[in-house]
């Protein structure tokens, strides 16, 4: 398929209801960190943008939300034009300008304090990171505590960023500033809002 066709194909078949389905999955995952909200493949973006993170982009992004793509995604011109065609979202010049950041290779990503952290007055003006992970069960198990979790929860996302636990501790210390993470796996969505405290299992 040529680039022009790639950037047009693969949007939501039913924009209104698909966007609602994706949003409710993200909302439930954000409200209950550690749970995996299943999501069918509603969008079919060009690789290496995954179906799950493509669906998140279609559901939440528009011309009000500058996007930042990691080098893996940025290298593929079809992804930029697919997102541009379907969402109308501009590309952010720097990670700190982005409302949403899409990251296909979390293991090689930049430090999370390079993204917008919001301000003390407006902590909502921070970047939401969408991390594409292979699955949510085969990585190092993370023990989660905090709002939305009755006692504790565990997820084990694969290919997480380097020194993630330490970076997340710094993120928690900045509260109410800080980034929120949406983990986009083929089987569904899990979220790590900035309020979630993470411990390595057995540590």
């Amino acid at each position: 398929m040529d680039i022009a066709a790639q950037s047009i194909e693969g949007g939501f078949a039913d924009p209104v209801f698909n966007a609602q389905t994706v949003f409710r999955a993200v909302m439930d995952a954000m409200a209950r960190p550690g749970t995996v909200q299943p999501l069918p493949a509603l969008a079919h973006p060009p690789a290496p943008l995954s179906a799950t993170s493509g669906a998140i982009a279609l559901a939440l992004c528009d011309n009000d939300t500058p996007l930042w793509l990691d080098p893996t995604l940025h290298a593929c011109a079809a992804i930029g034009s697919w997102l541009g065609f379907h969402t109308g979202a501009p590309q952010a010049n720097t990670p700190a300008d982005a409302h949403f950041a899409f990251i296909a290779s979390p293991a090689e990503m930049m430090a999370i304090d390079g993204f917008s952290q919001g301000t003390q007055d407006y902590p909502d003006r921070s970047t939401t990171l969408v991390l594409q992970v292979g699955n949510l069960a085969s990585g190092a198990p993370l023990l989660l505590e905090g709002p939305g979790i009755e006692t504790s929860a565990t997820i084990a996302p694969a290919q997480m960023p380097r020194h993630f636990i330490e970076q997340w501790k710094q993120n928690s210390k900045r509260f109410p500033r800080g980034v929120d993470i949406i983990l986009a796996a083929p089987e569904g969505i899990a979220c790590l809002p900035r309020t979630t405290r993470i411990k390595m299992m057995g540590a």
Partner: protein
Amino acid sequence: MTDIATYNFAYLDEQTKRMIRRAILKGIAIPGYQVPFASREMPMPYGWGTGGVQVTASIIGPDDVLKVIDQGADDTTNAVSIRAFFRKVANVAVTTETASASIIQTRHRIPEHPLSAGQVLVYQVPIPEPLRFLEPRETETRKMHALEEYGLMHVKLYEDIAKHGRIATTYAYPVKVEGRYVMDPSPTPKFDNPKMHRSPALQLFGAGREKRIYAVPPFTDVVSLDFEDHPFEVQTFDQPCALCAAENVYLDEVILDDHGGRMFVCSDTDHCEKRREAGHRGHLAPESDPTSQTMEPAQ
């Protein structure tokens, strides 16, 4: 003919929904923080729940079951008209039963029946800023939230004690969420404050005129402000509901005549009806109790 203008599902256009949805996600991530949002004009006046309606419209899907209450009642004007609105613009199932609703939009009560995981409680909020009557300037209240400077609120509660001998605030009683933000629980009676604490349901707050959305995720600490020597207390009632004999519920006073006659009945109509169906009788309940008029007739 049905070729009159039709609305998008749930009335709002998709760009508005995306904007509100992003605000809701930020609200959940920062419990108790008021996220500014571009509130729209709705086909009802401010004060009728435009904030709650926009939040509900942005989260609702075709499989949801909606319940709307106004001061605990399913059958008052505001509740009936909002329920009819969503049946018209989203064609969703509606109910008056707390347990079978997936979304409950509320004006100033939390249902007596305990909420469960997976339910969403949407509050209509008139004044989202708990500090507004103490400090009218938005620039200042924003700074106070940023610096976690809530001394003024404690002074206000202290002045209550100095004047009345007790904390006289009975509704919109300020709470602290997850040890950080002081939040207005909307003008619910303080009787309902303990129900917010570590509730299994997601709680979303929408203020349409003031253009703010905030949230309390499930299992989040919500603590009513108080003092060691004046601990927080909820209202108590010295008699049970006159219709269903329920105790430890919030009661409304109903004037019966102009000679001082009055009765106290459950504010939560669904709870009261369920109890009467189960055979509970208060001292003013009619002998044979017609309790089947729970829904307005189908269109």
